[in-house]
Every structure is written in C-alpha cells, then in structure tokens.
C-alpha cells in the first residue's frame, strides 16, 4: 500500500467542473460596466523612425473615446530582466522607433471593437524607413544596421559556459565530429490569445484582468512602466487559456489597455486576434548551432564545444535566459570532461524571441541528440549503450553548475531498450529514433530582482474543517492548482475536496514568481507543504494537550483521522480537533504559512528531471510526408503527485514538441511572417497524434515536496530529435534543420541518391 493517501491517486482537476461546464471565466470573457474596446495600430515596417502620429481624424469618428501613442507613456524601457538595466530595452508603445513588423504604434479605445478597428485606418503615421536585418549571422556583420544604440554588432547578450580543459579533452578523443544545425522558431499558440481588461479608478488604483503566467510579474512590471506603486495594482488571472512560456512578460494587450484606461478613466479591454497573436507577441528562439564533439572509439565522451547564434528579434524578453539554458542543457544528460559553450543572442528586425516550453533545451537536444546518433552510426556503436555509458547518475556534479541528487536516466535506458527490441525490424520506411533529455525544476536565478520568497503559500482552516489554500503560483492549464491541493491535502491529512485553492489574484494571494521554468511543483509545492505542516502543527498541539498519551507517542492526521501513529485505530475526526483548536485560539482561524527560496543549490536549479523517448516514424519517400506511428517515453520526475495531470503533461508536451519537429514552421520574408493564421501554420491535430504511453521511473528527489520534481516542460525537449533520428534510421538522411518539412526529406533523398550514383 502506498504511504500516501492522496498523492499519486486519481484526482479530478480542482477547476474541472468550471471548465467542462463553461463556467470558467477567462480574461477573454470579462465584461465590466462602462467598458471600452481597444485596438492596436501596428507598424508595417520592420525598422523605421516614427516622425509623427496624427490621430485627429480617428478622434472624430463617432464612438471613439481616445487614442494613445508612446507620447502618452512615461517612455520607460522595460524588460523582465529588470536587474540589468541594459537588457530593459522595450517600450511597448515606442516613442521614436519601431523594430519589427507588427510592433504597436498607437492604441484606440472605442465603444465597440468594430469602431476601434475602423479608427485605426484614420491614424496617419509618418515613418522614416530604415534599413533592416533579419538573420543573426547577417546582423553581426559590421555593415549591418544598428537596432539599439550601444549594442555593437547587434549582439544583445553573450553567455559563456565552460568546465574542464576542453583542448586536452579533445586531444584525448579518437573521433571528432562537427555539424551546423538550424532550429526554427515556434508560436506559443495559446488557445486564448493575449487578452487584458484594465480599469483605472480615481483613487489611483489599477485593476487588470490578464491572461497571464505570473500575476506578480505583471504587477511589478506594470508598476515600473506606469509609475504606480506595486501595491496599487491588482492583477487577476483566474483562468488562463494556455501560456507555454509566452505570457509572463508585458504584452501589448496589458500595456495598451492600462495606458488607455489611465488616460480615459474607463475600463478598456484588448483581445488580440489570432493574427496579432502570431505577429506581435514573442516566439520560441530560432537558433543556429555549431556543435563539435570528441569521443573515444569505445563511445566514451571526451569533449564538446558549441557555438550558438540565436535570432533574438527586436527585444530581449526572456531570450537572455533561453540563451543560458540552451547552452547548459546542450550538455545534458551526459558527463563531459571538457565542455565549452558560447552563445550570442543577436538583435534582428523580427518578432522578438523568448522562452517557450523547454526554454532553449528543445533546440539544444535537436542538435545534440542527432549528432550523438550519427556518432554511434559512424563508430558502429549501440545508441542506447553509448548514451548510457556517458549519462548522469545520482550524486554527479556538473562541474561548477549543478549537483544531481536524483537521476533515473539509467532505468530509462532499460525500459526503452526493451521496447525497441520488442519492435524488432520494422517494414518499409519505418524506423524508431530515440532521444534523451533532462530539465530543471525551477530556476535559481533572480534577474527579476524580487525581494520576496520565490514561492509562498498560506493555509487557512475554517471551523468546519474546510481549507482555504492561497498561492501565488499560477494555473495556466497545467493543473498546478490541483497539484498544490493534493500536496496540501496530503500534508494536512485531509482530502482534496476539503481544499479550496485561491490563485491568480495579487490582492489576495502571496507573491510567487509564477508559472515558468517548471518551477511550481517543486517551489510552490514546498511552500504549500510548509504552510500545511505549520497549520497541522497548530492542530496537533491541541491534540497532544488533551490526548493523555505517553509523550513518546507521535500523533498524526491522515484522511481526516486524528490518531497516534502507533495506534491508528484509536482516533477521532479531524473536524472535531479543528473546532477545539479554534476555540483554544480565542476564535481565530488556524493559519499556516509557508515559503520557498532555493539556497545552495548551484547555478541553475534545485533538481533535474530525466527522460528517454522513442518515436516510431513512417515516411512516404515520394512526398516526404512524416507519420508518427508509435512512441514510448521513460520518465523520471521523482515522485508523481498528480497522476492524471502528469499523463496530460506528457501527452501535451509530446504534441507541442512533435509540432516543433515537423509541422510548426514560421517562414519570414523581409521581416514579415508569411503564415500568421491557423490555416497555414500547422499544429498537431487529433489525427496526427500517436499513442504516447509513459513509463514512470521511481526516484525520490530530496529537495522536492514528497520527492517530486518537474514533469511538464522537460518532455518538450527530446521529441524533435527522436523524429530526426527515426528518419535517419529509416532513410539514411541527416536532417539538420527543424521543423523537418516534407520537401526537405525529398531533397535530402535526392542528394543522397546522387551521391551514391557517383
């Protein structure tokens, strides 16, 4: 029997009823009395000076209430890396210059969306068009146009990671291979587009409903750009229609609606169209990767060197973090005697790039795991055994970067090896590709410069035993409210249905960095566990006081039953104890508090998940069309907490990661995205998904609540490379650019045939 009564049991999502009955109210659905509708005028130019904006005709259109431009703002250059002034480079309504097609230039508020849209045509903007540059390798040239003053060769950020003696380690190698790879961008494509409703009132307070991954970040960032106190801004994000890394920076919807509301003293709602969401938010960072790897003939890894140029687009966003993480996870999950990474994030006149599920690691693994596969082929080694031989293990220290406490990658190899063997030889153009990966459980870095704990929670127990759990963690669909309710119920000794989770409101919830970097299960989970244990301790003090037991006996509450651990059959109802405890505290509700900030856990993260994925692919040689047939993922996320949520995270990550591998293409021409709609931009549909079973590997992470670590994001990392490796085994061609489009396969086959003919 499990030692847990709630953890890893079948639990419905705590927001489930609201979501399956249509009761859940998203920012998209919010309607306030007197509310106006905003629309944003966007730059048609990739790079231009704004000379003049004349909106007098727009104001004459009946129904138009007001217009704002950069001149109505404080002109603050903001960024989420707010500790580093030079990386705060984005004015969401720029004052003098636009740097990508789609960048906001002005915003209109009117009594209807239709009128606001008409008014955009009446705004006359005079531009001085500047030369533009779109690719990082062009933008670093001496003669390239300058995007931001003071950034030589448009280099926005550089990152260097190194350990060991790289040159010596390469000398030890008996085989060295180098390759250039290209990794595409990807749209977050949340089903709910960016949306905000801002309401500024005469008392100087601003309330904002926002489709957000981190209400606390929004509060902090808005305070900075609007000149308000953080405490005078309330951000509400009760239900969020997806995030995936794209909704924790200021966006045009939240900023423009706030500026309009402050000018007009009316609530203003802005919802992006799908096209706006494609062209004017941010995207997964496109990267050009050079990888040089040296190994011994027996497959022992010696050294790796990587150079990466990322297409940063017009502004920094979360791209600086992605630049670091791609370099770090490019080493995963292997031990390198010498490792060196140099990353360059380059400004271009395109849509800014930022974090997206996997945070630089899917790109890193696309290159690393394919090159490793080719090395095994070159040397005639077994792909699984070579990976296993060089893999991380519990207790391994990534030099100067991280200490690995729990690591189940070795067991992952066993599970996948068996599955691949059972498949045997596959017919036709079918083959299995494998790919390994690891990921962090929350970031340790504090570029936001928060003075608060990274995660906080408050638990309040009512007289009838029901529990209010207040968290700053944000549920964006990944099910964090449910996971945290499970942890709370387990720690307190009650059931999930006793817990009411309060989240997504800065006014009532404690500060928390929010939903990004796979941080909430571990960090918010620890905070919740601490808060629940604090509350429980207050209850047990009363229980001890009246138990009459010998002092050596330990008391506990489990499944609403207060008892001595040694004599579980003798006990009484938890609700009874709550009543006594509240009476004993002069009628005060029981309140427990918890918090978590990582200390002494290295540079990156307190804990790491591990996984190995196998994907079976069938390719039509004539058309190059890829079909995913089957898959298996062996996965170490420590102790699973939310069983149903975990399966959902795995399956969802697979669909997004496979989309990155072979469907989701973002072609730009002269800075213009050519497919900003869901007809031409392909995401996975139900008919394209294979079965994606998961084998959970049993490990225990000492830093995680009940031994848990991240589960939702890391699984985005291996899939694209696994598809690439399957294609390699099926057809003998090496795909160096993702997403893999059918024409690339046809071309590669043609090239291969020509080579063979010679």
């Amino acid at each position: 029997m499990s030692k847990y009564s709630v953890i890893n049991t079948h639990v419905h999502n705590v927001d489930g009823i609201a979501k399956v009955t249509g009761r859940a109210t998203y920012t998209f659905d919010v309607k306030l009395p007197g509310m106006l509708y905003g629309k944003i005028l966007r730059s048609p130019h990739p790079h231009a000076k704004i000379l003049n904006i004349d909106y007098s005709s727009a104001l004459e259109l009946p129904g138009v209430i007001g217009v704002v431009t950069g001149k109505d703002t404080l002109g603050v250059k903001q960024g989420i890396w707010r500790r580093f002034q030079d990386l705060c480079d984005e004015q969401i309504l720029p004052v003098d210059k636009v740097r990508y097609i789609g960048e906001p230039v002005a915003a209109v508020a009117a009594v209807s969306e239709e009128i606001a849209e008409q008014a955009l045509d009446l705004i006359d903007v005079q531009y001085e068009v500047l030369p533009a540059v779109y690719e990082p390798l062009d933008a670093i040239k001496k003669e390239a146009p300058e995007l931001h003053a003071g950034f030589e060769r448009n280099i926005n950020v550089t990152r260097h990671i190194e350990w060991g003696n790289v040159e010596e380690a390469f000398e030890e190698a008996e085989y060295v291979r180098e390759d250039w790879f290209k990794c595409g961008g990807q749209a977050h494509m949340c089903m709910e587009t960016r949306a905000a409703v801002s309401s500024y009132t005469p008392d100087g307070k601003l309330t904002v409903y926002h489709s957000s991954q981190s209400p606390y970040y929004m509060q902090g960032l808005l305070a900075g750009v609007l000149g308000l106190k953080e405490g005078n801004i309330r951000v509400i994000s009760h239900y969020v229609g997806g995030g995936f890394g794209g909704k924790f920076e200021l966006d045009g919807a939240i900023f423009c609606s706030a500026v309009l509301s402050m000018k007009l003293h009316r609530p203003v709602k802005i919802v992006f169209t799908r096209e706006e969401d494609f062209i004017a938010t941010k995207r997964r960072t496109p990267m050009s990767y050079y990888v040089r790897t040296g190994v011994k003939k027996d497959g022992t890894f010696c050294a790796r060197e990587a150079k990466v140029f990322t297409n940063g687009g017009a502004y920094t966003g979360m791209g600086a973090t992605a630049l670091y993480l791609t370099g770090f996870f490019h080493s995963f999950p292997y031990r390198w005697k010498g490792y060196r990474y140099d990353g360059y994030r380059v400004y271009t006149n395109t849509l800014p790039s930022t974090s997206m599920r996997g945070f630089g690691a899917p790109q890193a693994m696309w290159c690393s795991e394919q090159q490793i596969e080719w090395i095994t082929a070159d040397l005639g080694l077994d792909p699984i055994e070579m990976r296993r031989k060089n893999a991380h293990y519990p207790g391994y220290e990534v030099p100067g970067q991280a200490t690995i406490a729990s690591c189940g990658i070795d067991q992952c190899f066993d599970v996948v090896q068996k599955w691949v063997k059972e498949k045997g030889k596959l017919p036709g153009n079918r083959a299995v590709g494998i790919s390994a990966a690891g990921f962090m459980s929350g970031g340790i870095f504090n570029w936001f410069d928060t003075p608060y704990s990274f995660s906080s929670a408050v638990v309040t127990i009512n007289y009838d035993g029901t529990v209010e759990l207040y968290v700053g963690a944000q549920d964006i669909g990944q099910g964090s409210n449910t996971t945290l309710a499970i942890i709370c119920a387990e720690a307190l000794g009650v059931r999930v249905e006793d817990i009411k989770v309060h989240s997504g409101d800065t006014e009532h919830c404690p500060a928390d960095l929010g939903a990004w970097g796979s941080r909430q299960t571990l960090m918010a989970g620890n905070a919740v566990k601490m808060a629940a244990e604090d509350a429980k301790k207050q209850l047990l003090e009363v229980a001890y006081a009246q138990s009459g037991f010998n002092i050596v006996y330990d008391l506990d509450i489990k499944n609403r039953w207060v008892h001595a651990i040694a004599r579980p059959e003798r006990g009484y109802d938890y609700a009874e104890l709550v009543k006594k405890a509240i009476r004993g505290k002069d009628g005060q509700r029981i309140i427990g508090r918890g918090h978590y900030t990582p200390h002494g856990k290295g540079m990156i993260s307190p804990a790491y998940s591990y996984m190995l994925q196998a994907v079976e692919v069938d390719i039509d040689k004539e058309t190059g069309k890829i079909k995913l047939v089957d898959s298996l993922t062996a996965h170490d996320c420590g102790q699973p907490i939310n069983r149903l949520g975990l399966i959902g995270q795995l399956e969802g990550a697979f669909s997004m990661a496979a989309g990155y591998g072979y469907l989701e293409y973002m072609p730009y021409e002269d800075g213009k995205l050519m497919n900003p709609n869901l007809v031409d931009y392909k995401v996975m549909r139900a008919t394209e998904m294979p079965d994606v079973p998961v084998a959970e590997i049993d490990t225990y992470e000492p830093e995680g609540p009940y031994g848990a670590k991240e589960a939702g994001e890391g699984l985005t990392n291996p899939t694209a490379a696994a598809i690439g490796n399957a294609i390699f085994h099926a057809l003998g061609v090496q795909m160096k650019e993702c997403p893999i489009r059918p024409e690339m396969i046809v071309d590669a086959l043609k090239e291969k045939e020509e080579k063979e003919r010679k």
Partner: protein
Amino acid sequence: MEKQLLKLVVNGQEYVLYISPKSLLVEVIRDHIGLTGTKRGCDTVSCGACTVMIDDMAVKSCSILAVQAEGRHITTVEGLEKNGKLAPIQKAFLDHGSYQCGFCTAGMLISCEAFLKENFTPTKEGIREGIEGNICRCTGYNSIVRAVEAVAKGDYREEGT
C-alpha cells in the same frame, strides 16, 4: 445594415433578439445572449473553439450568421448539463483529464457529443477524425479520445433528465 428581429432557440430557451443580420452566430451567443462558455480562438474557421450543435450537427459558430440558425435548436456547452447533472461526456472529460487550460473544451465537448450521436461503436481512428476540426494545444488529444471511447462503451449514465 438595418437591425432585425431574430428568434433563436439556445439550450431549449427561446431568445428574441434585435441584431444586425451580419452578426455571426458566435457573436450572438456570446455577446447578445451572454453564454460565454463558447470561445473563439481564430478568425479563419480553423480551431473549433466556437463549435456548437445545431440540431444534432457540430457547427463552428464563427462560420455562419446567426440568422441562418433561425428556427433550429442550438446547443452550447451550457446546455450539456441537465438540472445540475453533468452529461456523460462531461463526466468522462473529468475522469480522463481531457482538458487542461479549458479554452478549447466547450467546442471540443460539443464536437465529441455530436460525434457520439452518430457513432455508437467508434474506433480510435474514427474518434480522431471526428475531432480533427478542433485544436487543443494542451492535451495532445489522446485523453479526449479515451473519454469518447469510455462514453461509447457505456461507462457513464445519463442523469438529470
């Protein structure tokens, strides 16, 4: 264009509306009637978030004018529940975790419901084709397929009618 009177039956309730004849059905359901369970996720009839049933057929409500639905029975997500009891497909979604952010869920539930009205013993592939018009960015669809299979198998009883 001049506004006109329109009678619509939504979830068994008759509404008399005074609207522009160029209003889309989704706009009327959301903005005029105020049933906001139905969502919009695109402008190109691609995503299915706005799917409703007209009589027993799943229709993307951004693809037709409200006036085209006059005299027909429209069912939205709010109409699946009867007297506070969830429909089998809603219960199956809860049990199988067939939603995450929930933004596609209204349309997805309706597509599944309409599919099940016509397909009593569906195959997995059949279910996948049945919901191909609905994008879900979160779940990867497989949990939705499992929910539909479970309902077709009779795992859930109709209540509340």
